[in-house]
């Protein structure tokens, strides 16, 4: 293998690969990245046996195709710290040489044949969707997914394909976020998949233009996302995703439409005086608008007023401010906040594309 490569583009590719390679694994070979030089460019492959990434660097001149398998973090560090505009990559058996204007690194690699094969998108994609729409659907839900729940299925985001509409649902048992996006093209029947968070955060880290079309293919146990440069494949989470429609209340009779940015700012400031064991921010609705208050024993109290139109009966309810902020940061502008009772869930809506159900905290 012999290739001359744009350093910045190679650096991007390696950073993407590093989000996939596991830091701790019983199989050290998975900490390697496979570098394949072919006519169309340089392809980097990383895989942790659940999540795979294939990333094509096009800004490269390949004079001799070939392949090498090297430790991903080593190669990434060399490329990151190099002052050069371009780097020359060359193999000699399993050794990879990286040359810059003033440098020569030899990295001892491993046998490429030992690296497990990574699934690829085969056949027609089920969906073609704009990268910006996909990104927004993920960003508006991924934060609500559980992290280390013993209920395995909720450690990911449920994707529902309904015709051209793609819905994303995530919950950690305390709140639930649902977002929707429209695909440009859809074939085949409706489908569902629970996608692990790591696959989606890998997608979020790719540099993709918002209007670029992403191919999506969902099989029984795999999801594959393909952009012009990158292909992400991931196994799906198994298990039963809770029946989310049941937990979305339909009887909220108290509605208020505050300005989203002001709402976020108020919650954020009220949260300044909370602590570990008294996290809750109190929200009081009255005809004067909303009053946010908090209290941390031994530290102090906060009150923030927000003008908003409200004509229902006065009520008070407590929320974990983090839960509100998480959603307010991503929801969009025109929001409706709906409540029923102090011990019943609240709903945050933004248009028909975003819905957030959040359980209150009992304040004393």
């Amino acid at each position, binding site marked *: 293998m012999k290739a001359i490569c744009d350093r910045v583009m190679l650096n991007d590719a390696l950073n993407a690969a590093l989000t996939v390679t596991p830091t701790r694994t019983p199989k050290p070979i998975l900490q390697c990245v496979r570098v394949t030089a072919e006519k169309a460019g340089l392809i980097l492959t990383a895989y942790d046996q659940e999540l795979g990434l294939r990333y094509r660097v096009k800004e490269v001149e390949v004079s001799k195709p070939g392949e090498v398998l090297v430790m991903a973090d080593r190669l990434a560090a060399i490329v990151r710290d190099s002052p050069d505009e371009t780097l020359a990559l060359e193999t000699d058996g399993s050794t990879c040489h990286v040359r810059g204007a003033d440098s020569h690194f030899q990295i001892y690699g491993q046998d490429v044949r030992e690296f497990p094969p990574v699934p690829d998108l085969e056949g027609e994609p089920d969906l073609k969707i704009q990268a910006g729409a996909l990104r927004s659907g993920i960003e508006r839900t991924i934060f609500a997914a559980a992290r280390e729940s*013993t*209920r395995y299925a909720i450690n990911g985001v449920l994707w529902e394909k309904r015709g051209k509409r793609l819905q994303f649902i995530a*919950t950690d*048992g*305390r*709140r*639930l976020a649902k977002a929707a996006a429209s695909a440009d093209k859809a074939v085949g029947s409706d489908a569902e998949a629970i996608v692990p968070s790591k696959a989606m955060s890998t997608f979020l880290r790719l540099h993709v233009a918002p209007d670029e079309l992403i191919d999506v293919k969902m099989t029984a146990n795999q999801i594959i996302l393909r952009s012009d440069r990158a292909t992400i494949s991931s196994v799906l989470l198994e298990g039963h995703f*809770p029946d989310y429609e049941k*937990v979305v209340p339909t009887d909220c009779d108290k509605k208020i439409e505050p300005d989203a940015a002001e709402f976020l700012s108020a919650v954020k400031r009220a949260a300044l005086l909370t602590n*570990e*064991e*008294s*996290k*809750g921010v109190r929200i009081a609705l009255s005809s004067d608008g909303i009053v946010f208050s908090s209290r941390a*024993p*031994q530290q102090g109290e906060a009150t923030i007023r927000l003008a908003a139109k409200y004509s229902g009966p006065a009520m008070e309810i*407590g929320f*974990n401010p983090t839960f509100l902020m998480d959603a307010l940061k991503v929801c969009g502008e025109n929001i409706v906040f709906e409540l029923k009772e102090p*011990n019943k*869930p609240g709903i945050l809506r933004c248009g028909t594309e975003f819905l957030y*159900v*959040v*359980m*209150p*905290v*009992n*304040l*004393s």
Partner: protein
Amino acid sequence: MSNIRRLDPDLVNKIAAGEVIERPASVVKELIENSLDAGARRIEIELVDGGASLIRVTDDGAGIAADELPLAVAPHATSKIATVEDLMRVETMGFRGEALASIASVSHVRVVSRPNGVEAGAELSVVDGRVEGPHPCAAPVGTTVDVRNLFYNVPARRKFLRGAGTEAAHVTEQIARVALACPNVALRQSHQGRVLRHLPASADRRARIADFYGPELAADLIPLRRQERGLLLEGWLAPPASARVTPKWQYVFLNGRYIADRFVRYAVREAFRGLIEPSRHPVVFLFLATDPQAFDVNVHPTKIEVRWRDAGLVQSQVLAVLRETLLSRDLTPALRPSMPAPQALPPRQEAVREAIADYLRRATPTLRGAASLDVATGPGAAGESGLPPAAVSGDRSSVPATAPSPDVSAPAQPVDSAPAAPAGDGRWIDAGPSAALQFHNTYLVAESSDGLIIIDQHALHERVLYEQFRERLVSGPLESQRLLIPETVEVSSEQMSAAEQHRGLFARLGVELDAFGPNVLAVQAFPVALSRMNVAEFVRDALDRLVEPGQQEHPETLIHALLDMMACKAAVKAGDPLSAEEIQSLLAQRHLVDRSSNCPHGRPTTLRLTIHDLERQFKRST
């Protein structure tokens, strides 16, 4: 106007039964003890419906002669003691002559017995208080006692009985106690006609421990033995890692009788102090043997408590054997820190103090501004204890652990009267950056005016959280996050009823539990402060703590036990690396709580090593 009158004897028996006969397990205990007293080599225990319908205990012991059968069920009739002197040296399990009479007053009893060498057996029944018999009948050598319809005439008690499973579990606990005390007696236990356990006579107590508590626990046990000053101590302890969330795994026997003794219990806790998390309890099996005159069992009708002639001796012997055993297991001994501090430091100690201050200043950049650290010392805070050094577990070996005074409740006396100083404890400079170093991700070390302070990060954080929770509880229930999708927890039927019974207590802690199925609880709300914790695990541990048998604890005691557990689970652990901010915030919170010098279980959070100590240890002073 009421008249004073003598109570009818049946009523007297019923009142006596109230003290001793609480549930089927108490009946089983009394009957097995009678069999043991009769020299039985084989005892069979059969139950129907958890004992509510039938309890039958059969033995191959000495039997009761036909003409003595009526006496056996009569109150205050016993073959075991005759004089006050006898009472002073009881060696039998029974001696009150009350059990059979009490049982017969609250159930339908039938006794069939044949002494060895007698041709025929005899049978006697007590039905609705009327004695029928004795009639001759065919019977094997030994005695069979049937107890039917327990509490048929005490509806309050009958209603109080739990499900068959729970009652059977209590019975098993009683059988386990006898099985461990008397391994040479064969035991057979059945329920609803199904044999649950068949234990052949054996010399091996450990095999019986394996039978009841699993081979894993038994395999890990470390044997112990000590004989001194008329007290023989034998048994096993489980290594600290096997500690449990409840203290019920401390089996203590005295001359073959299971006892619950606070002196022994204290010694056990003391021996393991610093080796296990404060919310956990050691597992021990201790068999004590001593002259019957060295204690009095006639304290409580159930004879589960004893009054020692010399409780201090027993406590120190138990402590000594446990410590010896723990130490011999390569649990590296700790140095003994902290002698009383002198009021004024002589010049050379002043110089050492300077040197330590200097070292700490250089050792960490965050110590800038800490030169004026001024920590007052209470001489009683961790004074000369006279106890052997405690042990620390291997991985934290290089850091001294605790060797506290045995009387942890003794108030320490503050020397410094600065208002911010918690009683008897150090005072930290409020402002400025963290003035402590973290060692082994477990201890924080900082300078004090007369030496060093070593803080157990887990113990201190636990104390801080505990106090915060406690304070919160005064103003209402703990803040709790409601769950959108309730989390389900599988529980035993006993745990289920505990959840029901202690609903109010859970509510105060911010935990809302609903029955969701026969053995499933749904958690509807969970405390905010525990948000990172595994919900199911917490609920199960909490219920475990609440169903400890034999502990009719006051709700306040229980709630504090649970607060302990919460604080322990939420606190940073030994081995957690802390950032400078976290250290600082932990040290800052130290002022905010009372009694920060000890963790909720009384384990010290802070040790001091004075310059005086250092001088002595380095042999620099005389």
